[in-house]
């Protein structure tokens, strides 16, 4: 970085920006807010340590995610970006339920169309014959209906039972 201006980090920290400054590639001087917010939440020395522990080719992504988390924490001092995780996990669960219901519905329709004479035209018509048949239909649908509760999708990214221990 020779004679060029110091990076945003060294400007904020009021120090000489060395040629091998670890922050310089990721915190250019034209965006002081980016480093300011990361410094406020994590601290410059912690960010430096984290970057040093990473291969060079992964540091840009690490800085991006740190900036994102720092911004989220400033916007929401209580939950940070964990609030978004909780919300999105809830959305995933709801969609899984909807998928299970839709898959069950397709199965119903397909069974109806295979044997239109044997099956009721509408499953929710409670006559004697349909009650008998709907029991066996329900048993066939059980694996689909329980799909949402035994999710293989990321219900708990860190493999813990709940968001908090």
């Amino acid at each position: 970085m020779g004679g060029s201006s110091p990076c945003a980090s060294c400007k904020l920290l009021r120090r000489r920006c060395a040629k091998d400054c670890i922050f310089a590639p990721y915190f250019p001087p034209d965006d002081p807010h980016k480093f300011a917010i990361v410094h406020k939440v994590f601290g410059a020395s912690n960010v430096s340590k984290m970057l040093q522990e990473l291969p060079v080719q992964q540091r840009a992504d690490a800085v991006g995610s740190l900036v994102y988390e720092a911004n989220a924490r400033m916007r929401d001092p209580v939950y940070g970006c964990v609030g978004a995780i909780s919300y999105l996990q809830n959305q995933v669960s709801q969609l899984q339920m909807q998928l299970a219901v839709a898959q069950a519905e397709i199965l119903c329709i397909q069974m109806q169309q295979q044997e239109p004479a044997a099956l009721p035209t509408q499953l929710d018509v409670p006559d004697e014959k349909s009650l008998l048949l709907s029991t066996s239909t329900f048993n066939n649908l059980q694996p689909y209906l329980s799909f949402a509760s035994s999710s293989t999708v990321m219900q708990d990214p860190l493999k813990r039972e709940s968001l908090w221990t």
Partner: protein
Amino acid sequence: MMNSTRCAACKYLRRRCSPDCIFSPYFPPNNPQRFLEVHRIYGASNVAKMLEKAPVNQRAEAANSIHYEAHCRIKDPVYGCAGIITLLNQQINDAQCELAKIQAEIAALNGHHADILPPYQQITDASSFANYPVEGDGAFPATHDPSFPQFYLNS
């Protein structure tokens, strides 16, 4: 007596744990790992500042979320929690597409009963299934936010 009742933070920092220590309600001495992790990522003074910024009745939640983020960052030093958000968004997109496909299939199978279909089964063009609305408000704040960085996807 002072030694045995110090919170995990004050034990680690080797200092006296005062009665109004900001850490002690949230970092009990029987769970030293919890404080170690937040200290490793944020540093004790930054954690104290973050807790002070949160309303008193929400500091427990704040401490939990700070620990969760620190734990995620330790597990994934490159992407941390942001990586989890990206993956969840991906899962939501995939599930929405899958749901739209299935609902299109249902609509096709029920084609001759189109007049009695529930409201969400009105697709006639299968190629538009990706834009099919889902139940609920469908508002996923991060999914369709163009400013949200897509971690993982570009690596």
